[in-house]
């Protein structure tokens, strides 16, 4: 879902840069208050894993592929604020070194896949987990739904940016982006749950580091 340059116009690029910058400034403040000693290396490991996993495109229907975003996973393990910093690290490296996602469009990509995806992942996960049980079953179900919802809403945000930029009509791009990411989101949910289950089996303590 990395937007290349040319897909968003200058006003949309500027607005999303400002929105992302403001969100990250707040994320820095919250991380400064909340991040514990033990979470520092987990931030590095999460970023490394998400970058590597994003390279593994998996096929979905009709000659289309998708890959993990990882925002929900980072958020479930470290909270939305550290999650945003991790996702932004990944997106900045992808744009600057790998030419994946444009430089003008970087603000939009951070807004969609870092800010929106982490916040949606956070609220979906915390609300659902409260409804379900506190154990690993609740974590797995909430994690799947949060991961799926984070991808679909990031895709909707992306579609809105393309429509406002006049790159494509809203009635065309919104249903198309939503539909394909409803499928890709299932892959996101499965990978997220697999990692959570792996951690529950090997390092259950890492699942409890998350700030409230």
């Amino acid at each position: 879902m990395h937007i290349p340059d040319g897909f968003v116009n200058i006003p949309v690029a500027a607005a999303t840069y400002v929105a992302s910058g403001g969100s990250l400034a707040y994320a820095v403040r919250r991380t400064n208050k909340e991040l514990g000693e033990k979470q520092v290396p987990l931030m590095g490991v999460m970023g490394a894993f998400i970058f590597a996993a994003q390279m593994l495109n998996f096929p979905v229907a009709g000659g289309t592929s998708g890959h993990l975003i990882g925002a929900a996973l980072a958020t479930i393990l470290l909270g939305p604020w550290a999650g945003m910093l991790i996702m932004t690290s990944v997106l900045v490296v992808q744009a600057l070194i790998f030419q994946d996602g444009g430089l003008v469009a970087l603000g939009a990509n951070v807004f969609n896949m870092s800010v929106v995806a982490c916040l949606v992942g956070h609220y979906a996960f915390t609300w659902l987990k409260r409804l379900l049980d506190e154990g690993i079953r609740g974590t797995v179900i909430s994690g799947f739904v949060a991961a799926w919802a984070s991808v679909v809403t990031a895709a909707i945000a992306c579609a809105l940016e393309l429509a406002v930029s006049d790159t494509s009509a809203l009635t065309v791009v919104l249903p198309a982006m939503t539909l394909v990411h409803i499928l890709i989101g299932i892959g996101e949910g499965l990978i997220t749950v697999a990692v959570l289950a792996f951690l529950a089996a090997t390092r259950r303590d890492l699942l409890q580091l998350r700030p409230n």
Partner: protein
Amino acid sequence: MKRKWWIAGLLIALAVTLLSPLASAWPDGLERVAEDKGFSEDAQDAPYEAIPDYVLPGVGNEAVATILAGIVGTLVVFGLAYGLGALLRKREATQRD
């Protein structure tokens, strides 16, 4: 041993890059929509290229070049995210001294 758990985590991430040559080459969700809806031509080339398309330049074997690109990116992101965390972590204990 336990305090070095993050080394195991980093090794898992690096191991994941070994699978990268097996990734699907099909267009992703946004690329597919851009092709189908006729706006993929709007995409502009990057002003410079470092490691474009996750293939390390100058390496003959594409699978190896992809894995090497993945290792470079994984290590850079690890350092960046770890550094951000180290810089921003709360320091109540040290402030009280």
